[in-house]
C-alpha cells in the first residue's frame, strides 16, 4: 500500500472515529426517504423506476457534500497538522487524492446504503436495473464533482464554515448552469456556442442523461476531468497558502 492508500485509510477511519460519518449517513438516508416518497411521489407515479429518488440528488448533495468537504484541508491548517503531513515523505498529490478519495468513499457508502429502495422497486415492479446502476454511478460521480470543489475551497481558508459557504455557492452555480432557468436568461444575441458551452458545464445536463440510463463516455469524462481540474487547483492552493 502506497502513501495514497495510507492517507485514504487514515482519513476514512477518522470519519468513523467521530460521529460525523454516522450523522452524515443517517441524515442522507432520511432526506432521501422524504424526498423520494413525499416530494417525489414515488408511489403515486405508479412507475417502477427510481427517477424520483435520483432527481433530488443534486439538491441533496448541494448541502450534504460540502459539509464533509469543508474540513478536508481547513482543519489541517487550523490545527497545524498540515505541517506534520507536508514534512512526512508524502507527495502532495498523494495527500490531495487520498483525502478526496476517503471523502468520496464516505458518500459512496451512504449512497450504497440506500439499497432498500432498490429492493423495494424490484419487489413492487420490474424496473430496468441497468438504468438504476447507471444512475447510481452518475450520482456518485456527481458527488465526486461536488467534493472536488469542496476540497479546493477548503484549501482556501482555515475556517471550515467559510469553506462550507463557498462550496455551496460554487456548487449551486454548477448545478443550475445547465438548467432552463439560467439558459433562458441569456439574451438572444448571445452566440449559441457560448450558451451551449455554458450548459455543457452544468451538472444537471450530465447527470440527467446518466440517470436516464444513457452511459455516454462524454458525461463520464466530464466528471473525471472536472474532478481532476478541481483537485489540481486544490494542490496549487495548498502549496501557495499552507504557511499562512
Amino acid at each position, binding site marked *: *500500500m502506497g*502513501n495514497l492508500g*495510507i*492517507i485514504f485509510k*487514515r482519513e476514512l*477511519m*477518522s470519519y468513523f*472515529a*467521530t460521529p460525523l460519518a454516522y450523522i452524515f449517513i443517517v441524515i442522507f438516508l432520511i432526506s432521501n426517504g422524504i424526498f423520494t416518497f413525499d416530494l417525489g411521489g414515488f408511489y403515486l407515479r405508479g412507475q417502477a423506476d427510481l427517477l424520483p429518488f435520483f432527481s433530488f440528488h443534486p439538491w441533496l448533495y448541494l448541502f450534504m457534500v460540502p459539509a464533509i468537504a469543508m474540513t478536508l484541508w481547513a482543519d489541517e491548517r487550523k*490545527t*497545524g*497538522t498540515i*505541517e*506534520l503531513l*507536508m*514534512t*512526512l*515523505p*508524502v*507527495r502532495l498529490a498523494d495527500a490531495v487524492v487520498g483525502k478526496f478519495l476517503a471523502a468520496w468513499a464516505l458518500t459512496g457508502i451512504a449512497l450504497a446504503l440506500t439499497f432498500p429502495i432498490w429492493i423495494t422497486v424490484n419487489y413492487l415492479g420490474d424496473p430496468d436495473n441497468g438504468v438504476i446502476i447507471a444512475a447510481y454511478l452518475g450520482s456518485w460521480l456527481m458527488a465526486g464533482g461536488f467534493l472536488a470543489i469542496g476540497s479546493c475551497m477548503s484549501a482556501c481558508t482555515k475556517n471550515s464554515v467559510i469553506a462550507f459557504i463557498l462550496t455551496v455557492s460554487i456548487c449551486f452555480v454548477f448545478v443550475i448552469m445547465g438548467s432552463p432557468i439560467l439558459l433562458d436568461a441569456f439574451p438572444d444575441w448571445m452566440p449559441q456556442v457560448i450558451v451551449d458551452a455554458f450548459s455543457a458545464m452544468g451538472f444537471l445536463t450530465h447527470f440527467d442523461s446518466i440517470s436516464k440510463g444513457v452511459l455516454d463516455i462524454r458525461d463520464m469524462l466530464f466528471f473525471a476531468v472536472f474532478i481532476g481540474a478541481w483537485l489540481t487547483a486544490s494542490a496549487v492552493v495548498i502549496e501557495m497558502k*499552507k*504557511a499562512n
Partner: protein
Amino acid sequence: MIEIPNLSKRFDQFTAVDDLSFTVKEGEVLGFLGPNGAGKSTTMKVITGFLAPSSGKVTIDGFDITESPIEAKSLTGYLPEGAPSYGDMTTLDFLNFIAEVRGYRGEEAAKRVAHVINEVALTSVAHQTIDTLSKGFKRRVGLAQAIMHDPKVLILDEPTDGLDPNQKHHVRELIKNLAKDKIVVISTHILEEVSAVCTRAIIIANGKIVADGTPAELEAQSRLHNAVTIKLTKAYDLRNDLAGVDGIGEVSQDPEDELFYTIFSRQAKSIFNEVSEVARAKQWPIDEFHLNRGQLEDLFRTVTTQAGAR
C-alpha cells in the same frame, strides 16, 4: 550533514530569514536560539521542506530539500512548534499511521511503534484519544512521531515547551542518548537547556546569525565572563578601593541590594587575583565571593538587542 548556504525566506515585504549560512555535522546537537519572531521556526520549516526557500537552498546529506524532497524528508524527523497531531485518533492509531507513512509494515511497524512508545513513556495513554491528553503527553506523542524511523536528522521546535521539570529532564536525556552519529537541531528560549544538551549554539536575531559557538565559547563572550560578584556583610563602597587597579572595568552595585557588587573584567582576563588582593589589603567585609564563567543569558540579551536596534 545539513548544509545551508545563503538561505533567505521572505513573506511579501517581511524578511524572516536573511541570508543565513551554516552547516551542521554528524554528532552535533545544535541549539537554535533567538527572541520570538527572530526566524527560528521559519528556518526550521524551510529545513524540513514545509516552506520553500525564497533564495539559497538546504541540503540534507546531499539531498536538496526542494529538488529531492522525499529523500530529504525520509532522513528527517520533525517536531513542529506546538506538536500538532490528529486529535481524533488514539495515540496508538496515530503512531501506527506515522510508522506506515515512514515505510514500516506489519510486524516491523508494530515493533517500531512499541519501541517509541516505550522510549517516551506513552504506554499509559496508548489507547486514549490524543485530544484528551495533557499538554505534556501531546508533546511526547509529537516526539514519538519524530523519532519513529530513528532519523539521521532530528529537528525539534521547542521540544520542552509546556513540560514540567521532570518531563523536561526526561526529554533532554532522550536527546542526549540519541546515537552519536545523528544531527539534532533544537530551538528553544530556555537557555539552561542549551548548556544542558547542546554541543553548539547559534543565536539569531532578525533572521541573521549574531553568535555561533559551543555554549562555553558563547559564555566566554558574555560581558560577565571572568567578572567577580561579591556579597558583603555590611554596607561598604568598593569603588574607591578598586580605582586604578589593572584590568578592572566597570564596578556596579545591585540597585536592589546595596550589599551586592559585580566587578567586570576589562579584557575578559581573569581579575580574580587582583580583586582578592585588594579585598585582603582593605579588609572588605566579604560574605560571598564568586568568579563568573559568563552567562548565555547575558550574551543573548546583548547580541539580540544590538541587532534589534540596528
